[in-house]
């Protein structure tokens, strides 16, 4: 829905920030809409069917799957987070609810999180100082909740050089600070 309101990024800026430290590039992303998608009890078959029709992938636990319009990662039993382009899906639940009807509980999550895309070579050296996930051995497409400096975050490993973090929006500055100081200590 178009509106004339001016938005701020989670870091409190007008535009998304990009920080480069050595081989690492940390990019704030504001252009992704997010919603939780949970299957209602006893609706598994209808839910799966609706997901297929809507083009919403339902990846297995601890994994991420990309789709044409919607991508998704597993967050907890019977619940996924669905990603879509923000510009075209600002009100993402309005897009999803008609497709799933009463088979799912859908909640907007876009602004509950700050998203940082962390890219570069040597990500394992960076993330071994941030999280107890064994990034080096995790497969591409791995997704999990983890903790970074007291903050509960979702981590998605797209490749050895591309990791996505979703952290609590109100602590965006704290999460970026943790990434920055750790990156400086690694390089």
């Amino acid at each position, binding site marked *: 829905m178009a509106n004339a309101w001016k938005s701020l990024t989670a870091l409190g800026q007008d535009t998304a920030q990009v920080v480069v430290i050595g081989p690492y590039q940390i990019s704030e992303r504001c252009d992704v809409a997010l919603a939780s998608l949970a299957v209602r009890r006893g609706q598994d078959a209808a839910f799966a069917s609706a997901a297929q029709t809507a083009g919403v992938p339902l990846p297995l636990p601890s994994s991420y799957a990309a789709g044409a319009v919607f991508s998704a990662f597993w967050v907890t039993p019977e619940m996924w987070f669905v990603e879509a382009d923000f510009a075209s899906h600002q009100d993402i639940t309005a897009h999803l609810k008609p497709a799933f009807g009463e088979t799912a509980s859908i909640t907007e999550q876009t*602004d*509950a999180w700050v998203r940082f895309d962390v890219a570069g070579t040597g990500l394992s050296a960076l993330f071994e*100082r941030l999280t107890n996930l064994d990034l080096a051995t995790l497969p591409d497409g791995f997704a999990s909740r983890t903790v970074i400096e007291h903050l509960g975050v979702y981590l998605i490993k797209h490749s050895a050089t591309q990791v996505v973090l979703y952290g609590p929006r*109100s602590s965006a500055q704290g999460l970026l600070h943790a990434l920055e100081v750790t990156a*400086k*200590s690694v*390089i």
Partner: protein
Amino acid sequence: MNQSNRISGGQIDRSKTLHFTFDGRSYVGHAGDTLASALLANGVRLMGRSFKYHRPRGPLSAGSEEPNALVHLRTGARQEPNTRATVAELFDGLHATSQNAWPSLKFDAMAINDRLSSFFTAGFYYKTFMWPAAFWEKVYEPIIRRAAGLGALSKDEDPDEYDKGFIHCDLLIIGAGPAGLMAALTAGRAGARVVLADEDFRMGGRLNAETFEVGGMAGADWASAAVAELSAMPNVRLMIRTTVVGAFDHGIYSAVERVSDHLAMPAAGKPRQTLWRIYSKRAILAGGATERPIAFENNDRPGVMLAGALRAYANRWGVAAGDRVAVFTNNDDGLRSARDLQAKGVDVAAVIDSRQGGDLLPGIRHLQGAQVIDASGRLGLRSVTVRLANGKTETISCTALGVSGGWNPNVNITSHHRSRPEWRGDIAAFVPGTGGPAGLTSAGAAGGALSTHGALATGLAQALGTLADLGMAATAGDLPRAEDAPISISPMWYVHEGKGRAWIDQQNDVTVKDVKLAHQENFTAVEHLKRYTTLGMATDQGKTGNVLGIAIMAELTGQSIPATGTTIYRPPYTPVAMGALAGRSRGKDFKPFRLTPSHKWAAEQGAIFVEVGNWLRTQWVPKAGETTWRQSVDREVLATRRSVGICDVTTLGKIDIQGTDAGAFLDKVYANTFSTLAVGKCRYGLMLREDGMVFDDGTTARMGQHEYVMTTTTANAVTVFRHLEYCRQVLWPDMDVQIISTTEAWAQFSVAGPNARNLLQKIVDQDISDAAFPYMGAGSISVGGLRGRLFRISFSGELAYEIAVPTRYGDAMIRKLMEAGAEFDAIVYGTEALGVMRIEKGHVAGGELNGQSTALNMGLGKMVSKKKDSIGMVLSQREGMNRDDGYRLVGVKPVDPKGAISAGSHFMEIGAPVELASDGGWLTSKVYSPHLGCDIALGYLKAGDQKIGRKMRAVNFLTKTDTLVEIVSPHFFDPQGERLRG
């Protein structure tokens, strides 16, 4: 100084000269030196004073077991106490100073303690400072603490940073001596993910300190070649300067990597140390062994050291610890020191060998059947007195004495799960016992294989066994040829001759006499011995002294050593800086802040922020001319009640609850009913714990047939969510309920005051008149084309709404509200004004929601529905919680409007004695009400509902106030609620 004791050879880089100071005096050393080796090279033996008696001390060892050579390292804020000179890596510009000595190391006034030693025996404190009891904390302890001690803290903030991290591996190998390297080569070649950690800055362990060959080359060269091969393996991680300090559950080990301690200061952005948590599938302890001394009179003279250390200084660092040395041993390993030193051209005065018979060392005066019975040289060894086999005594001039009483396997980490080491008579030492940490085995000297061949063979075997255990194929490579000499030890713990003190635990000044006294006073069990004498309780955990003390006690009791037993070890293996444990969680980074959507705007206004959990909330927003916080808060309250005020309430927990059973679920978790709530309405809800006490409160709105939005208090946002998850997953898994937090997804603002509707109507696209959007209404709205939510709820008692928009628009929303509110003189109010207004209205919050109060206590007893079951309903009906004379929420005003009330005051009847028996309850929250012009408070008063209008005393011993107050209704303001329904 000119490094007068520097001799040829060693693994130092003589092309790199490093300048350093000790106690203000300048010296030079070389890259590869430790502080201790460099000082010894410069002829400095005296490096510290002992803990209790302030005895002059030099280094006993050449490793992390060092009890004596503890120094302050660096200066200013980076000064670190209790640093072991034996492992402090030398760098250019290093400054070290001695500690626990005044006015100087050579003349220490506190050495008077040594003269008074007969008064400071074991159990001294327990016997001496018995009375009067009150003196202990105020008099005795401060004096004792000042007299005895180690280093001093700088008391400045640590300027360095510390990292934490996580490492995963198949196999963790602790120690990179011959056993560890062999194990790493075997596992690395098999493709296992290996972490090889060593506390030293050079891998190789004892191979660096010995002269014998491994695989046809010098042992140190073999180690270098092994390290080179391992370095090329991508599956092997070599970690030098890394001490594995503890074993924890499930194969997790902690390790401290000293990233920058070998530098004057860390490079920009680099941590000083990193605390690693290592997740291993298996681990091999290859931490080597620690030599132990033999106790004899005055065996703590500077210059008396372990024989293995003596030759380590010569072989690795090219240092003769003295210009004329002697060796005192009870085993063959001690003879090596004499041979190596002689080969280096050092004058070896004699070898004093307690054993009889066997081959004599060629070219060295080898005194068999002899014992050292005394040492002289107060600030540095000058000579030793020897009882010869023929019964005569002889004084042998020497400036260094190497002592070898055998080697103790470094079993420490195997004990971290309470496994007790077991005695092995053939090597006269404790070895790892059974029941150690699961997945941990030991190899090399740590496991009792004391020869180089034994180390290599067990390293290979343990690696193969581990790999097989992990299902990984491996081939046994060739075992390098190495010496396999037996240790040939004839146990001897202390020299029985002499009346003076013979030291066992040098760091804690525990002597043979102390052990004898403990035995005499029946503290014979090892745990009692430890605590009575403080044996092994110093920072070195008794690495060199424990076995001596136990063996001597065994001898005194007539028991065997295995029967006597041993104490065990706890993490950390060596001391760990508090900074490493804290990591980056310190100062402003202790925990991440949470910022509200209006934070940027509020900061621009000069708002004062307060920490509420991790949130930074606006406490008040001062205006020009306001000099006290009360002026700002009073203004905010009055302006809100007069016209309109705005408050960021994003911090309140918001939980989206959906599913066909969402209403029924809420009926169970709330004391009151929600399934009957109409769509588009909200209701105040009270949540109880299972024990009937109030857990949390808030409003919950029904946004659709199967969709609710619950709000919680800021404080309990997480705990309520966790509670709901527990209820959903554990208590009622059959219910169709899905929940997720949306606290941060929406920027939510309270707009309160008579002009709240007028303001909002300017920006909300729909009609929000009282008819269209009545009291307790809720629903989705459009705000200037932006999707939003509106709730007509009030915490302030005013006509009020909470309006929410997606968080990214929160900043724009606060600016738009202020812009639209300009014509109404709208203000932003903070948490202080919020508190004033809620107390004026009689709403409970933190002070009342104390976890010990019931709905009845709060005057909300009728909210607990008896028509349905809900968490806490049954237990809230307990008789004791429903007494007529139980606590009830009341309002409190001072009889004299100028009277001051203090929160926490207790109610006392007028005329009653001020004592516990008269206690009628307490004040929970207190504010100044600008509306009423006086202090007001809420409180819990026994039978308070029956005491409205009564005058009582509010007594507070802490603030020393005693105020005459009137008990009133808790609803000070608009008790009929006409304003909020307006």
